[in-house]
């Protein structure tokens, strides 16, 4: 199910922890949904000198956090903002379909931390951490690995009243 690189990052997460004197902090997710990530960054000369994270979540969420932190470290803020979900998933040699949303979370938390830093720069030191919890629910079916989940007359689980009524013969 998970690639070796995912398992490696999960088992030995890089940069797990807190930066007490962080220049920026970003948080996404919600424990109620099963995933929550907080990213801490230290900026020096426009570069991410240090990146740390705290993550509550599944194997993929932890591996993604670790990978994102590794990818971000040393990059300029602009480079770091360009880390895409796809790049993260690719660096992890893929994620199961129902876990792809985790890769979104990591990059998003990093970006929020950068934004937090930038706002602090603009507004002074009292700015709060950035947080977004909307990203935690994927907009595709998480119940199956099919490439294009079909909205599911067959699936009583995620079948949100579309069901068989939507189905057309050919």
């Amino acid at each position, binding site marked *: 199910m998970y690639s070796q690189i995912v398992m490696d990052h999960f088992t030995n997460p890089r940069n797990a922890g807190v930066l007490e004197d962080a220049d920026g902090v970003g948080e996404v997710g919600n424990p109620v949904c099963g995933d929550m990530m907080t990213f801490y960054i230290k900026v020096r000369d426009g570069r991410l000198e240090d990146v740390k994270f705290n993550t509550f979540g599944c194997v993929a969420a932890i591996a993604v956090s670790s990978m994102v932190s590794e990818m971000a470290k040393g990059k300029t803020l602009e480079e770091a903002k360009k880390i895409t979900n796809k790049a993260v998933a690719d660096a992890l040699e893929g994620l199961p379909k129902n876990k792809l949303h985790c890769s979104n979370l990591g990059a998003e938390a990093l970006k929020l931390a950068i934004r937090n830093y930038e706002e602090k720069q603009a507004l002074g030191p009292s700015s709060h951490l950035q947080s977004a919890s909307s990203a935690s629910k994927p907009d595709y079916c998480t119940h199956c690995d099919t490439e294009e989940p079909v909205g599911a007359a067959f699936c009583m*689980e995620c079948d949100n009243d579309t069901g068989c009524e939507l189905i057309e013969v050919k």
Partner: protein
Amino acid sequence: MKRVYLDHASATPVRREALEAMMPYFAEAFENPSSVYDRGFAIKAAVDEAREKVASLIHAKPKEVLFTSSGAESNNLAVKGAALANLRKGRHIIVSAIEHHSVLNAARYLERFHDFEVTFLPVTETGLVDPERLRRAITDDTVLVSIMHGNNEIGTLQSVAELSAICREKGVLFHTDAVATVGQVPVDVEALGVDLLSLSGPALGAPKGTGALFFRDRLRFVPLIHGGIQENGRRAGTENVPGIVALGKAAELAQGELEKKAAHLQTLRHALVEGVLGAVPRVHHTGHPEQRLPGHASFCFEGVEGEALIFLLAQNGVYASTGSACASKALKTSPVLIAIGMDAAVAQGSVVFTLGPDNTLDEATYTVDVLTKVVDRLRSFSPVWRK
């Protein structure tokens, strides 16, 4: 005593390779394929490999194959599931009059519990569905047509591609029960043009309790067994891992042997049919003379009753069947034989021989001899024969 097993359609011994392939999955690699830890993944991988092999045998994609517990379950899932998923389009389905009970009764279930109308399409004397009749039977309300690939009682192979083309043209789903054909003749879901196709494991030398359903990618159907996420939510219940692995192995073997096996079976069948028709008076060879399952020879003997014949054959070491275990136990006249226009009294004398790869020409000859003897014996005190 010689023992000649000619009832392969009823049951086949599990193939050695299939049995060997499944053995580790009982007590060693026993974990649940849905488990999230590593040892569960290995099991899931074995299931996926089996899925690829079954898909390959019928020229489908692995994600188009779902594992079930039997051919009957596959038929029920296909017919009810596809019909119920398309209620908005209409409530009419068409099945041939010679479908297996599991299709016929699934259709009757729709009739009774879901207000469906069911058309039972007649067949010709050789058991073929007339394409033009099918075309005329399709209405705006028709959602599904189910016509079997090969018939278990009379051996006739339908021209499925021709029939499915009509349905495709009319925008109607097409299901075929290929329980009798997969592993016997080439089955290519693309060439057949079908949306759903049922197969059973035992017919391939996999163990009882296995089956599969092909469904065209992204085709929606309502599950028969609702519940968890197994089979992507399409069929709940812990997967029968050993059975599935064995089915995969059997499919792989079948794919390699198909042509050679069919040629062998056909030779034996010819010998058997010619032998019987030559030696026994007043016998009817049922089904299509040519367009039929390679290893399937079916007869109706006038003046005798099938069960008695089967028993006497078995006492002489020849194992055959009356064609449909269901009809026979229910003491009903076979609806299939009635559908091809067989006289009801003659239909009582139905015997079906289904050959397997291990049968020999000697056995075919022996069978003709035994058959001649026991038919004679039963006729000797048959009031029907005397008249």
